[in-house]
């Protein structure tokens, strides 16, 4: 009994570890082939970059404004009213919108919108054996397909983080206005608490989220098997694993940033 349970659990744990290892290997290969000449991926990089830009800007706009207005804006505003400290809403937005919500929403939207498109595209090419044909014809799929997607998604998510911060703060302004507050204190506490560390921390974190999404989505696409159904499964798994990766890395990054930059712990 114990043995059969163990036997059933064991391969799945092993499978998870193997997949994780494979993704790490793919990350290493991707970085290595991005740096080593030749660099044939320029055109594909530009087209992937524009593709992601086109897909992501609108869903991201709507979700950042709405979520920042709703969650930290109205909910935290309500809570701050209790202490008569609604003028501190701007300061709270540094913690909520810049450090956490902006990066998370950006990477989740990028994963859901651009990442799934990447997995579906590569997965379809895999099951049609296009990727095998490319390799036989001397084209390295990592260099020519994964590298441009990896770089494009990193740049796109990093840039979109700034975009998400701006629209997130706009959501906060809407919330402050709906509480009938003047905007002076909102800006005042926002800039009192915001530091350069917050900004680069946020952008760096989101850029790495983009890298995680790119690797997971490319890996899942390139290892799809079993026809159209297999591609659907790969897309599904890619999103789930991307979210897990983003969550896990967010914890590590936040801990490290707070430990190495204790000054951002002080709320002014």
């Amino acid at each position: 009994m114990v043995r059969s349970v163990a036997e059933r659990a064991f391969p799945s744990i092993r499978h998870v570890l193997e997949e994780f290892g494979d993704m790490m290997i793919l990350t290493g290969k991707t970085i290595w082939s991005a740096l080593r000449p030749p660099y044939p991926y320029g055109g594909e990089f530009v087209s992937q970059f524009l593709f992601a830009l086109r897909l992501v800007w609108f869903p991201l706009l709507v979700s950042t404004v709405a979520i920042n207005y709703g969650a930290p804006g109205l909910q935290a505003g309500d809570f701050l009213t209790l202490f008569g400290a609604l003028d501190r809403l701007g300061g709270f937005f540094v913690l909520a919108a810049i450090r956490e919500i902006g990066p998370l929403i950006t990477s989740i939207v990028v994963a859901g919108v651009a990442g799934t498109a990447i997995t579906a595209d590569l997965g379809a090419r895999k099951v049609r054996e296009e990727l095998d044909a490319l390799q036989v014809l001397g084209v390295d799929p990592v260099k020519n397909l994964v590298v441009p997607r990896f770089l494009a998604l990193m740049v796109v998510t990093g840039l979109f983080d700034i975009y998400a911060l701006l629209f997130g703060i706009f959501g906060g302004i809407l919330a402050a206005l709906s509480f009938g507050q003047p905007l002076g204190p909102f800006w005042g506490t926002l800039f009192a608490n915001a530091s350069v560390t917050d900004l680069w921390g946020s952008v760096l974190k989101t850029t790495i989220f983009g890298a995680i999404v790119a690797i997971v989505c490319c890996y899942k696409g390139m290892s799809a098997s079993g026809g159209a159904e297999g591609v659907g499964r790969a897309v599904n798994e890619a999103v789930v694993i991307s979210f897990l990766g983003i969550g896990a890395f967010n914890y590590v990054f936040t801990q490290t940033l707070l430990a190495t930059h204790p000054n951002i712990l002080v709320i002014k």
Partner: protein
Amino acid sequence: MAVHEPQRSSPGSEEQEFEFHTGEIRASGEPDAIEFVDVHKSFGRNHVLRGLNMSLPENKISMILGPSGTGKSVCIKHIVGLLYPDSGDVIVHGESIPSLRDAELFETRKKFGVLFQDGALFGSMNLWDNVAFPLRQHTEKGEDEIGEIVNRRMREVGLGGEGAKMPNELSGGMRKRAGFARSLVLDPEIVLFDEPDSGLDPVRTALLCELIKEIHAENGGCYVVITHDIMSARRVAEHISVLWKGKIVESGPAEELFASENPFVRQFLSGESAGPLGME
């Protein structure tokens, strides 16, 4: 790994399972272009190739015949170095494919033309660019010369004038023919076909088989055709290897195999329902 697998059937099942696998290799009278030496390959618990010994002769159209799911496509991927054996060796023109370094493998792959199961055309390019792709990738030829070669190969497979079409606008048969043209543009010494006849109606299958024969007669070289279709085998095969359960049942010149006494070979080559091969 195999030793850790739970013993599902009675002892001695190994002999029973391979009771028809004489592994007999009848002389073909030609040197071997491709050799599999005791190749084992597993995917997780799925032991696909189980000690495969197979040789495919130079200058002939060889067929690898076997029921679906026995690892025929896996064989092709070993030949071109897309998969590596867990143990054993794959030798092409005296070179051990698994031990080549990346740069050497890149060179060696130039001598292969591969026609994948559904043509494997690049969906983002039109037919003409698909067929020109290997030339642009592997040679320093100018566009004029490339144009000449591409046009000739497209005409040969009956797609002259269709170059501007995109792969998704084509029927399965046309995609295969385009894939065939693409696999020929580098004048490969070895051409591998993965089920060229799957998903085609009998007439188109017959036409494609004729085409393979014609082009082989013209260019020579080692052609390896994978199929489970016995009609195609009768039409084009000069050499046959029967693969089942990851091992060769019997192999040799086509006419000798068609006259074989082996019950499995007879069942398979005559397409009868009675015999060792069941639904499983």
